[in-house]
């Protein structure tokens, strides 16, 4: 006879608080940040929790640029490190996102999206940072962008974000929206062993053999923490396998191509989606974040009304999960992309569609959510 399963700890948490649970479950021990609505609860919660975590460190920096700098420094020193922000801070972080991508420094950045450009609508939801998350830092660089739609997903996708950051030595951006971040839901708190947790590969060869940016099978070179006896050079300049600046065309090409390949080769692992009744769908809704929750109800109601509707929830936004989207577009008469912006992820859907089927967008930019009935009107 097996012992009765221990009752799991439950909590009534904000999406932002759930992010902290996910981060700690993933092994995060370092947080640097700057307060900004609507992400601040992540920082406040980290300030309370990290002093009690073995080796935990927390620091409030002077701005978002500095926050990212500190996160990069901590990651180079071997920590799993993160920061969180919202639109205006996200714009300031772009410089360092590019540096993290170029130097292949693992980190997690949570951007709780609010409405509008500039200071915009600080306390309202938006999804206007999707294209910026992909292309905000200058120059060609790969990046991983994830999203979450509810509180349990905030835990799960934060763990995933850390896992991807460590596995692929890449900055990972988790896009939330004000609704998801500020919705309080009951969840079961993660216990050790609930999630598979990855840590970066460290070198096993003697230090004198180590080449920090060497080509490897996976395209992801091992990464020792600073101070562990492997002395090497890290630079945002285009570098050779030893890490030193280079402008030799063949070395420049090899570096950039490897950086893209290390992500491109693992689409199967990285691109996470959820199919809801898409197998026979003639109308497909493609959504992410809080809008996916409205879409879920709309699709259910459309089914009840006799419309063969389906929903594809994108949990990975970039690399754009073309392999999941394209087959659906080939088999439906209508695809609907509801978003809290003027049409950002729908650009990707239209690009993949190549004019094959009708793609309709629902765009809302007034700081209000897209309701199930608004979506239902378009699909039924």
């Amino acid at each position, binding site marked *: 006879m097996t012992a009765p399963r221990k009752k799991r700890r439950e909590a009534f948490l904000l999406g932002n608080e759930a992010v902290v649970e996910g981060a700690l479950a993933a092994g995060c021990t370092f947080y640097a940040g700057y307060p900004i609505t609507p992400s601040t609860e992540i920082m406040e919660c980290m300030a309370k929790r990290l*002093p*009690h975590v073995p080796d935990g460190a927390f620091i409030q920096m*002077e701005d978002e640029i500095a926050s990212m700098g500190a996160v990069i*420094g*901590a990651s180079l020193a*071997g920590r799993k490190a993160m920061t969180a922000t919202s639109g205006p801070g996200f714009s300031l972080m772009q410089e*360092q996102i590019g540096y993290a991508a170029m130097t292949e420094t693992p980190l997690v950045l949570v951007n709780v999206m609010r409405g509008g450009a500039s200071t915009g609508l600080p306390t309202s939801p938006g999804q206007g940072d999707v294209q910026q998350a992909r292309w905000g830092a200058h120059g060609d660089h790969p990046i991983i962008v994830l999203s979450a739609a509810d509180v349990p997903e905030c835990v799960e996708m934060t763990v995933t974000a850390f896992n991807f950051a460590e596995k692929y030595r890449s900055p990972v951006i988790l896009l939330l929206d004000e609704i998801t971040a500020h919705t309080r839901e009951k969840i079961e708190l993660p216990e050790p062993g609930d999630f598979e947790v990855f840590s970066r590969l460290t070198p096993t060869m003697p230090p004198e053999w180590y080449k920090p940016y060497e080509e490897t099978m996976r395209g992801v070179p091992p990464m020792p923490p600073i*101070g562990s006896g492997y002395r*090497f050079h890290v630079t945002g300049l285009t570098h050779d396998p030893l890490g030193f600046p280079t402008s030799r065309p063949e070395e420049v090409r090899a570096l950039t191509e490897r950086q893209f390949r290390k992500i491109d080769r693992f689409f199967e692992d990285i691109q996470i989606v959820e199919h809801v009744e898409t197998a026979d769908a003639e109308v497909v809704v493609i959504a992410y974040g809080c809008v996916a929750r409205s879409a879920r109800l709309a699709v259910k109601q459309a089914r009840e009304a006799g419309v063969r509707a389906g929903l594809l929830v994108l949990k990975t936004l970039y690399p754009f999960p073309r392999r999941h989207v394209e087959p659906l577009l080939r088999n439906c008469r209508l695809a609907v992309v509801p978003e809290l912006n003027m049409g950002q992820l729908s650009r990707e859907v239209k690009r993949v569609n190549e004019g094959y089927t009708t793609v309709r967008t629902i765009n809302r930019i007034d700081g209000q959510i897209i309701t199930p009935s608004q979506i239902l009107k378009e699909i039924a």
Partner: protein
Amino acid sequence: MAEITQLIHQYLRHNKKFPLVFCPGCGHGIVLGSLVRSVHALGLPKDDVVIVAGIGCSGRIAAYVDFNTVHTTHGRALTVATGIKMANPKLTVIAVMGDGDAFSIGGNHLIHAARRNIGVTALVLNNFIYGMTGGQCSSTTPEGAYSHTCPQGQLESAFDIVELTRAAGAAGVSRGTVYHVKELDALLAEAISRPGFNLVEALTPCFTQYGRGNGFKSAVEMFKWLKASCLPVERYEKLEDRTGKLPIGTFVRRDVAGLETRWANMRQALAAKKGGAA
């Protein structure tokens, strides 16, 4: 000479492509030497030393030395250094920056690093000019001096780095020059050993981008200018006429624990409280 050769073999990277990027007459190589000599004098293991550099001529120093080296973005060296020190307080973290790096684009990071007294040494190579981009004025270009972006003479006044960092609360503030090398070695070693945030400003001439446009006939003349105008702060303070003179030496010595130590103490106290209650 044999001693210098030994230091070169011990502290400069064998796999790095030399020669240095610095122009003839540049003082940066001397500061690089000072950095190596002070680390050597303190007997710090190479594995425990981290050089975090910014962007500009000074930033290139990081690539040549056989420590853990991080060449960051423009002005952000101190932010990355802060993260490294908080993550691993056992490391000796030295941020190497230029004047544009530390006082212009990175000015906010500098005053906050000083205010929070993170245990990092800031070594600022002040050449009064943006050298790498071809000679534009910086926030330390003296009033009236010429550069490509102030061809009629600088109208703005320069930062007094010593007063700025002193006011911000740094544990240590000092200034040296590449003419007074022995003194610079000592200042740097002292700064690295003192807890909290320590700034060393090293005056280093840029003949190519600054000297030529400001009436200096040669790099040697710039070194002679350093010799003639800089004097120890103790003597400087006794001067009646201080025009054209610059004090060098240590200006601030405060006894403060670095932020990383205060953080560790707080965590220890928390753990003790928790243990006591149980």
